[in-house]
């Protein structure tokens, strides 16, 4: 148990996805452990509204790149509130926080969470942001950690991997047929599903092509989520004349129910991944997973133990992996159970909170005179 801490999260990016959900889960979890937690974010964006809904203290704050006003605002707020730790999450707020705290006496420590695996530019400015500009860097997987150490020269002892914790009670195995009835999905088909923001690098296109190549009328592709290329994906399905075999249901709040309706979870990402929450959630719901070894995915999905990993951006291996699992009920059950066990043991919320708490406490501890024997 650490000291109670005053922790402030900053988030400038206005998306809604795994990153934002993790921030809110961490905030809520540490609030419930008796810490003081606040979120600084531009007013009105999705995470702002959701934080309010969940009763997490949130402060509206202008955050623009090269915005002197934004920086002054943040500096004023930090000076008045004196948190122990700032946990930054996106590029813009990380810059603002790093610069705004520089001249504060007893400045709050900065922990930067890097949620995605996109390569970080090696220019001196970025190097400064990740080394001097942050007291600790948290990545969502070990692979990302290694990249930061090897390619960007961040000292190893300052980068820690803390996989995103999933609520394994909420994301629990469900009754497949009951869920399908409630959601109006067919009972007589095998359902391959993906839950994710519809973005290019999540690989929806390859998944659609693979299902098309399989050409089996008993298989339905279920696409849950919304995103920037939603229309492109819709057009792609229409172009292949797959309207009856691929279903796009948009963003859904009750994700565990949709996962419960699936037989196989597939996410053929080809870039920018940490450990995607959707994959761990699917594992926690007792689903076998087909994915790629991009980012830190392989830390969650163990090839031939909890699912299958295939090369990114290739349709035939993906189609073959789908066929393997579709045709083998026992193998699916075996991977599914192993996945659930792994999710509970390694990716639960409590495990994540323990680690984050430890990092926040260590980084903000005043240097103690060490005269002890």
């Amino acid at each position, binding site marked *: *148990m650490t000291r*109670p801490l005053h922790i402030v999260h900053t988030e400038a990016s206005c998306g809604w996805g795994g990153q934002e959900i993790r921030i809110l889960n961490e905030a809520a979890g540490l609030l*419930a*452990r008796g*810490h003081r937690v606040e979120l600084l974010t531009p007013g009105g964006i999705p995470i702002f509204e959701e934080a309010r809904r969940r009763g997490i203290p949130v402060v509206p704050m202008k955050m623009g790149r090269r915005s002197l006003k934004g920086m002054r605002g943040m500096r004023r707020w930090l000076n008045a509130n004196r948190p122990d730790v700032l946990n930054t999450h996106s590029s813009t707020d990380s810059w603002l926080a790093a610069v705004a705290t520089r001249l504060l006496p007893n400045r709050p420590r900065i922990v930067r969470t890097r949620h995605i695996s996109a390569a970080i530019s090696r220019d001196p400015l970025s190097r400064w942001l990740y080394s001097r500009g942050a007291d600790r860097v948290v990545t969502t997987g070990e692979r990302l950690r290694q990249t930061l150490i090897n390619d960007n020269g961040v000292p190893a002892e300052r980068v820690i991997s803390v996989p995103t914790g999933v609520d394994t009670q909420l994301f629990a195995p469900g009754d497949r047929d009951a869920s399908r009835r409630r959601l109006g999905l067919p009972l007589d088909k095998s359902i391959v599903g993906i839950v994710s923001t519809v973005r290019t690098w999540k690989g929806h296109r390859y998944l659609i092509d693979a299902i098309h190549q399989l050409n089996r009328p008993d298989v339905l592709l279920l696409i849950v989520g919304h995103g920037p290329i939603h229309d492109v994906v819709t057009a792609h399905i229409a172009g292949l004349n797959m309207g009856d075999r691929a279903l796009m249901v948009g963003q859904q709040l009750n994700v565990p129910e949709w996962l419960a309706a699936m037989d196989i979870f597939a996410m053929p990402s080809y870039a920018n991944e940490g450990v995607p929450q959707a994959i761990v959630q699917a594992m926690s719901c007792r689903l076998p997973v087909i994915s790629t070894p991009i980012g830190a995915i392989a830390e969650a999905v163990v090839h031939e133990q909890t699912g299958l990993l295939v090369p990114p951006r290739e349709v035939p291996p993906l189609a073959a992996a789908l066929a393997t699992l579709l045709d083998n009920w026992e193998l699916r059950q075996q991977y599914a159970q192993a996945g659930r066990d792994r999710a509970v043991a390694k990716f639960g919320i409590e495990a994540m909170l323990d680690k984050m708490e430890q990092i926040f406490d260590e980084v903000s501890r005043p240097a103690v*005179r060490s005269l*002890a*024997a």
Partner: protein
Amino acid sequence: MKIAIFIPNWIGDAVMATPALAALRDHYGPDAELVGVMRPYVAQVLDGTGFLNGQLFYDPRGSQPDLHSWSLVRRLRELKPDVVLLLTNSARTGLLAYLSGAPRRVGFARGLRGWLLTDKLSMRTRLGKLLPQSAMDNYLRLATLLGCKQLRHPPRLATSAQDEAAADGVWQRLSLPTGNRTVVFHNGGGWGGQAEAKAWPPESFAELARRIAEQHGLGVLVLCGPAERDMAAGIAALASHPLVQSLAKESLSIGLSKACVRRSRLMVSTDSGPRHFAHAFDVPLVTLYGATHIAWGDTHYERTINLQHQLPCGPCMKRVCPLKHHRCMTEMTVDEVYQAVEAQLAQLARSEAA
């Protein structure tokens, strides 16, 4: 807002609860009614702090029936608190909180107690065993759960004019040097003086006292509780130096002990409750740990030096050494403690010169 706060039963824990009390007073303001529920003697610890504006005495196994549990339930129901905050961990106090009828009951969930609480925290455990954790931090976390925002209150206590007068009397009778020229010792055996596990050998304390008196010309006063008079008198007698005295023959009270610590230059103590008086009055401290984990009583005090010997058998948290050697304390030498005392005195001289 009316909050009934169950104050911990031990002196040290009560001092460690003061940051949480200060945070609550800060957060709810001067008009809030903060009522302490506590053992009568604990009230002496908190006397004069002003954190509480009411108290209910409670002693479930004491000789006075009107301090027993049912009487307390009746008094709590009359009080009608909005919140009951439990800084105690027993199942009994959980039940009392439930029976009080308060809509909000806040505390640590252990065992079945969680069912009785509305807002709860769980203590960190590993394989079902409690991990060492600072009681002060735990109390503060409970206060934070109630919305308190200021988390860095240090322990704070106060003395009354009466306490100070009693200490004046002691200083006079024992001819101790005034103007913070006296070091206080406390050799608490631990757990209310009922055990020996925390004690350092009296001969060692006597030797340390003599060195402080001879080398630095400082007075040394050995504090004690009612059960520790003989031990305190023994240390003073063994030291056999006019500057080394004890409270053994004085009329004892918690208030007197507080006043003695407050006017001292430095405190040297085992892991006893009264050692927290030092932090509360910002007096430098050297703490000698034996069988106990430093973490449980950690108040993050910058002016303390903690000494502990790392042994394969410890820290065992036992009241009496199960191996009968008590090496954690007997092997701690006067030299190393004296070194820590010198470091503290030097630091003090530097800060006084600055």
